[in-house]
């Protein structure tokens, strides 16, 4: 028997595989397909304080081995979430993580504070990296100082463990990761989507109603993996890796590059069974390699 558990310090996961925010709804949507308690963790859709309409359609476009989205964080808001969804999620034995959004620093803090007052959450993931909500795709995670300020503010507003989700649309992602660590974040997750444009030649219009969107899926995997590798060598806090993970090999590669745990996003659409299959695949692989504790492989890249 392989020990698949992951100890992030502030949180112990039964295995390293979590469903990524925005690709797994509020969790309920996948309930008909498999037992959610198989998951290492589950990050719900981004939450603002108030309900939010999101961006004009079309909101999705395909690109080679990738998906571009501009959902714009449509969602029910933190009150409805705590009232209607969280009690149900709280009964799961998997780690439930809320994805915290805000138009400005104050809103991030308010959302975090509100969520902290309700039982059932294992941690907060601070989404300072969504490219779909501000003009031109800008976000706080593109600037170490804005990152520091936002994390600090949320850190003070909530006692829940904090994971800061980083943007890949930066020159030096390690600087932003260090700022998050400095401000008291207990972990970083990376990456969010890459700012992208797709055009419909016939109409000469952007394929997305919001013009720009965020690229996810296998296309970005080597870029996300490079960033995980860079960040894991710089920070002391655990790194959660994501970006194009579609099978157990992908997940393990991220761990070898330095990720203590991983998240699976777009793959949930292509293969709704992706998460449990990846967990099973990791277990079988570790067994075949004679690995007793999976966490041994974290950062084991030979270079």
């Amino acid at each position, binding site marked *: 028997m392989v020990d698949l558990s992951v100890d992030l310090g502030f949180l112990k996961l039964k295995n390293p595989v979590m469903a990524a925010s*925005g*690709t*797994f*709804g509020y969790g309920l*949507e*996948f309930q*008909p*397909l498999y037992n959610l308690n198989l998951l290492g963790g589950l990050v719900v*859709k981004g939450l603002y304080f108030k309900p939010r*309409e*999101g961006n004009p*359609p*079309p*909101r*999705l*476009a*395909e690109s*080679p*081995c*990738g*998906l571009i*989205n501009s*959902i714009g964080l*449509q*969602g029910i808001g933190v009150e409805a979430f705590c009232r209607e969804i969280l009690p149900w999620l709280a009964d799961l034995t998997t780690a439930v993580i809320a994805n915290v959004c805000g138009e400005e620093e104050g809103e991030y803090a308010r959302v975090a504070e509100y969520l902290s007052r309700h039982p059932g959450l294992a941690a907060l993931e601070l989404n300072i990296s969504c490219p779909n909500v501000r003009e031109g795709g800008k976000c706080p995670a593109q600037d170490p100082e804005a990152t520091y300020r936002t994390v600090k503010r949320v850190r003070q507003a909530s006692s829940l463990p904090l994971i800061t989700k980083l943007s890949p649309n930066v020159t030096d992602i390690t600087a932003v990761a260090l700022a998050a660590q400095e401000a008291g974040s207990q972990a970083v997750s990376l990456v969010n989507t890459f700012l992208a444009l797709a055009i419909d030649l016939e109409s000469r219009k952007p394929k997305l109603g919001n013009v720009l969107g965020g690229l996810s*899926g*296998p296309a970005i995997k080597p870029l996300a993996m490079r960033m995980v590798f860079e960040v894991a060598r710089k920070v002391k806090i655990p790194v959660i890796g994501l970006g194009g993970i*579609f099978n157990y090999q992908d997940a393990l590669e991220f761990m070898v590059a330095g990720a203590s745990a991983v998240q699976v996003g*777009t793959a*949930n*659409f*292509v*293969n*709704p*069974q992706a998460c449990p299959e990846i967990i099973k695949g990791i277990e079988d692989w570790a067994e075949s390699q004679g690995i007793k504790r999976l966490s041994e492989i974290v950062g084991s890249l030979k270079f």
Partner: protein
Amino acid sequence: MFQDKNARIIKTESWGNYFLLRLAAAEIAQKSKPGQFLMIRVSPGLNPLLRRPLSIHDCSGSEVEIFFQVTGKGTELLSQKKPGDHLDVLGPCGGGFSLLPEFKDKEIFCVGGGRGLAPLYFLARELQTAGARPVVFYGGQTLSDLPLKKRLDEAGWETNFSTDDGSFGFHGLVTQLAEKELMKRKPSFLFGCGPEAMMTRLAEICQQAVLPAEFSLESIMGCGLGACWGCSRKIKKNGEIKYLRICQDGPVFPAEEIIWSGD
């Protein structure tokens, strides 16, 4: 909702650009209702990436059928499948058409444009089984756009055909044909599926005739499960206009809730 990773293709049929596939997928078939759809992975590879939404064209016992037109890479790949091949199928997705008890003995119009007929065949069959009198309208640009003609002729309900070029049936748009008949026959309900412009016109006609109607809408889809909010579209629900999910809150909506893209 089931994911059948190995739904075997039992039969394929094709007419030019149109294809019909029959799949063995027992769990899915047993739960399917007219108006629901499948999310089908068109290739085991990663490009194209997303599943494709396709209506359940017919369903019986442990088998489901899809009927589609090749419009791009995904449907192209799907059209190359052969009997004996396997497909990864998720379904049944979404809600179906309303099959009301009061339809019994009433005339119910089912109006389809092109590939839009796909969900209406299953619907008409179920309406007939339930004792209603489906009247199907099937329009295309030309005769070769009406590949289901033979099948409909054999179905035992009334079908009316139209072609834009007059090569078969009524000469004109299927909306014109439906309007003409609708004025005459005063059906109890109308179900529609087809290109946006066609449905928009049909909705107008129904509104003028005070005929209740439902339409099946399309959108590019990420998950088909209600999880990504990628398929959202503005819908008027209880007087409020909101982005609702085509996949989960639809794909079938009452005419009065739909905000047509031309509006």
